[in-house]
């Protein structure tokens, strides 16, 4: 049995220790905001926070999450009360098809810098096939 928190709530998991975190989130806890892109740690779409740090949830066996705090995009804002980053993504066109957006929001939520170069470096692990990235950088800078 593995215990951890998801979005601040205590959770227990009793299945296989090597199920991937992304699958546990989506299948066992019905948190489908986290998306899977490549499944090999190249696209960043599945990024969630583990103990406040971004991590690709497709590369984490759930067995390593004992005692950890996991945070997903569902905890960032609600439709009636958006996170400042979410508002900024709407305003600056930072999201088009939206598949990469949950992961990008999670990394951006932990970003300390507002410098263009710092944002580009920190966000380099996320692929977006729609926006061309400039709108994403604008959204993060001007939140």
């Amino acid at each position, binding site marked *: 049995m593995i215990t951890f928190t998801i979005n601040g709530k205590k959770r227990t998991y009793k299945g*296989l220790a090597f199920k991937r975190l992304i699958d546990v989130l989506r299948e066992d806890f019905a948190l489908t905001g986290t998306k899977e892109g490549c499944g090999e740690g190249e696209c960043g779409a599945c990024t969630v926070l583990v103990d406040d740090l971004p991590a*690709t949830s497709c590369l984490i*066996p759930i067995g390593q999450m004992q005692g950890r705090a996991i945070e997903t995009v569902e905890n960032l804002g609600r439709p009636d009360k958006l996170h400042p980053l979410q508002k900024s993504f709407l305003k600056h066109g930072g999201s088009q098809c939206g598949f990469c957006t949950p992961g990008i929001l999670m990394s951006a939520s932990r970003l300390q810098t507002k410098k263009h170069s710092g944002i580009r470096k920190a966000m380099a692990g996320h692929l977006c096939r729609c926006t061309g990235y400039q709108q994403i950088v604008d959204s993060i800078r001007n939140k």
Partner: protein
Amino acid sequence: MTVLGPRTGSEAVALYEKNPQAIPLAGGTDLMVAWNRGTLNHKTILDLSAVREWRAIAKTETGVLIGSLLPLSELQKDPVIFEKFPLLVQAASIVGAWQIQNRATLAGNIANASPAGDTFPPLVVYEAVVHTVSPHGPRSIPVREVFAGVKKTTLGPGELIASIELPFLKQNPDRQLFRKVGGRAAMTISKTAAAGLLWLKPDGAVKELRFALGSMAPTVRRLRAAEKFVKGKKLTPEIVSEALELLKKDVSPIDDWRSTIEYRLRVSQNLLEAFLLGHVPQR
């Protein structure tokens, strides 16, 4: 699949001895790719992530000991490593991306023994030492001797990496370089990766050169021929161009879908040339 979860270093050694076929798991950023492809089905995994004693950084009179399970993001934040071993910090900062560095470990990178391991060129120019533990006791191995080939190490059965030691340099180098060349700013496997340290005499002649290339051979390579050739010489354009020819003696790049032999060689030579001619900006 069986997962073994030791909580201490000695537990890890004991479990590994009983299960010599087990595959050690640290941050999982490479191993999980294999798992997702199904190639680890029915294997036994030795999950080391709960071994807290292997996550520490220790400083001694002569160097820094990096715990095998320390995430690469934490390695970058350490002020002594940042000050004394900037090339390793630069390499750690381009392994995968932020999301990967929060999980990936230095020992995982080493044990994985990819020809393209980005931390290896800095580790070999700093002449790091890998400290291991096993049922036969502890062992200390110069890092370059750990790599035996593509994804192969000289670690024996039951042997686990406990820490990596970086000995302080006797004298600060006059020039240093780390540069990774890949198809993308992050999450990319290197076409070539270079680390260099250069010490000059007061008259401008080379006192010592250490230069290593990754992704240019089955294992990371020091450019022994070029290093030896430039020793005691002033770095004139003629000497540098001879050193660039000698670079080829220590590497054996391959053509693959990622790059070509010619490109890898040319870019590696360009990096060495820029470094030796003093065209690489120093901080």
